[in-house]
């Protein structure tokens, strides 16, 4: 069953056309992550789902109700803001129960539901505190708790973890994943962070400049990016792109395709070999990063951008050495002159 359907949604701020013809369907209970570079319209789309921004044209449908003209409070959604937007003049308990207070629910029910949410998030001891006396992570929990108390049809998150430090971010990421498993509610989650996207999402929507570039499961997007943008956006370090006429490239004819303009290969899919005729690409090592778990080589093969290779473990190959690289056919991504993936080759 679909929870949210977007039908040719457009958004204009005056003359600025921010979202162009967005059509998407999110299933009930699905965890959907919206990713894309800054300014591509992720927050705007999320705020339109929340009802905080009017839709310029197109249909926004929840279940089978058109909600374009419904107020946020009529949509049965909860949203976690990047800034948390906690009410500074209310203590944690009142912050959590504010939606029930507005609905004039009985004190007992309020107590019940707030302490339930506080229990899930470990906020029991903080109920009397005011937001200014909480740490960033605690505020984040309160913001999530406020959404949990609502027990909404849809959860919306706008970069909820971006104000936290790295360790706390990982912790809260796991917390959110657990929350989704536990509640099974439809969640739409906006982030910059591709690790968050890959780990949390059932499906990822990659956006760029107000348009949807590709929709799919994390692994689908990783293995079959539809175009150069998606290929370069997901994965770290980024996919290497080599022009078809690059002199350093030495692909056997079985791997080439006449309409391919660009070949893409992920750093982790490269095998280091001797710099001889069997190598598909040859270059000299410019920089080495040894992370312990992996070693990353930046290889100069004559192009402006280095060719990046990631090998597992600690590799002692030194700077200045000449090495060869080999790819498996199924790991090679081919893109035509429009930057679109050439797919028939891949499946072959």
């Amino acid at each position, binding site marked *: 069953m679909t929870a949210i359907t977007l039908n040719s949604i457009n958004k204009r701020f005056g003359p600025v056309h921010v979202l162009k013809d967005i059509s998407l369907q999110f299933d009930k209970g699905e965890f959907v992550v919206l990713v894309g570079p800054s300014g591509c319209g992720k927050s705007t789309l999320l705020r339109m789902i*929340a*009802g*905080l921004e009017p839709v310029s044209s197109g249909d926004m449908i929840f279940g089978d109700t058109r909600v374009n003209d419904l*107020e*946020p*409070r009529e949509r049965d*959604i*909860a*949203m976690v*803001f990047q*800034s948390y*937007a*906690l*009410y*500074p*003049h*209310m*203590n944690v308990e009142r912050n959590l129960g*504010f*939606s029930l*207070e*507005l*609905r004039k629910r009985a004190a007992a029910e309020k107590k019940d539901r707030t302490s339930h949410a506080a229990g899930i998030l470990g906020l029991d001891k903080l109920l009397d505190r*005011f*937001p*200014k006396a909480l740490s960033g992570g605690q505020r984040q929990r309160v913001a999530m708790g*406020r959404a949990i108390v*609502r027990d909404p049809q849809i959860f919306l998150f706008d970069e909820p973890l971006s104000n936290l430090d790295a360790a706390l971010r990982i912790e809260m990421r796991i917390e959110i994943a657990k929350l989704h498993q536990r509640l099974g509610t439809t969640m739409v989650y906006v982030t910059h962070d591709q690790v968050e996207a890959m780990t949390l999402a059932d499906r990822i929507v990659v956006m760029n400049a107000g348009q949807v570039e590709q929709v799919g499961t994390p692994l689908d997007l990783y293995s079959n990016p539809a175009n150069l943008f998606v290929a370069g956006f997901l994965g770290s370090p980024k996919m290497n792109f080599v022009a078809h006429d690059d002199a350093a490239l030495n692909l056997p004819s079985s791997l080439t395709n006449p309409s391919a303009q660009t070949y893409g290969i992920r750093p982790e899919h490269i095998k280091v070999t001797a710099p001889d005729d069997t190598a598909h690409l040859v270059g000299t090592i410019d920089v080495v990063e040894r992370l312990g778990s992996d070693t990353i080589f930046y290889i100069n093969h004559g192009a402006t951008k280095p060719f990046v290779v990631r090998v597992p473990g600690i590799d002692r190959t030194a700077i200045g050495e000449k090495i060869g690289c080999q790819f498996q056919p199924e790991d090679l991504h081919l893109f035509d002159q429009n930057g679109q993936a050439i797919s028939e080759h891949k499946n072959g």
Partner: protein
Amino acid sequence: MTMALPTSPGNGRGRPLKRFQWLVEPYLYLSPAIILIALVILVPLVVGVSYAFQAIDLLNPFETGWVGFANFEKLWADRLFWKALTNTFWWTLGSLFFQFFLGLGLALLLNKPFAGRGLVQGLVFLPWAVPAFLSGLNWAWLFNPIIGPIPHWLAALGIMEKPQNILANPELALWGPIVANVWFGIPFFAITLLAALQSIPRDLYEAAAIDGASVWQSFIKITVPFLAPTIAITVMLRTIWIANFADLIYIMTGGGPANSTNIISSYIFTTAFRRLDFAYASTLAIALLVLLLAYAMLILQMRKHLVKGI
């Protein structure tokens, strides 16, 4: 080994003399400022208060000297004082009530974006810039049926039987200066409350809208708590200011007809500069001061409770 630090404050705390030095020293450095402040603030205050316990009547220059509480006994028995006190109450309450609520309404309107907002904001703040003397005269004329339109409008609306000058009617005269004062004071509340409104983060309203708040609920539960500290402080300042603000009354009615519009501060003014009885004027001023101090302390106590989370 380490350097000796003979002048460091913590060092000599053990010995009595040093300890005394340590306590006194800061005040020594502060003394020029303290003496200056005392001279400027305290001396005039004490001199002024001392007048209330003397007889200083310029029309009776030979009967001066200390008279104890005689002036306060006179005050207690003075019918005009009680009348002025009642008037002060209604004058302050009436002016403040309308200034505040109209100012708040205006601030809420100006907080919404609309075409020409900048211009309207500028115009709204004009009355504040008009000298009280000028606006007093202006309103006195507006209430005058011979040259002003207001009595004719009131008569046309059936509120008044025939066009009369309310400033000449002892029952209604106080409302003339109150109306002028409301017009004059709205911008003050509009400016300060607008500034406070604009400092409320927008995402709180969005969070509240998602939590299910109606417009009225987010006003009561978000806007009002955020404005409360500003409201407390501006209402306090304005109360004191209005209670002391005799200009409009003096210009529009001169306290008349038959003393029906005197407030304490205009009564002080006439007592001091018309009747030249400085001692009694000072007694009246002390009465007003005590009342306002009590009021200010009450409001400041309330404000403490309002600012908890913010």
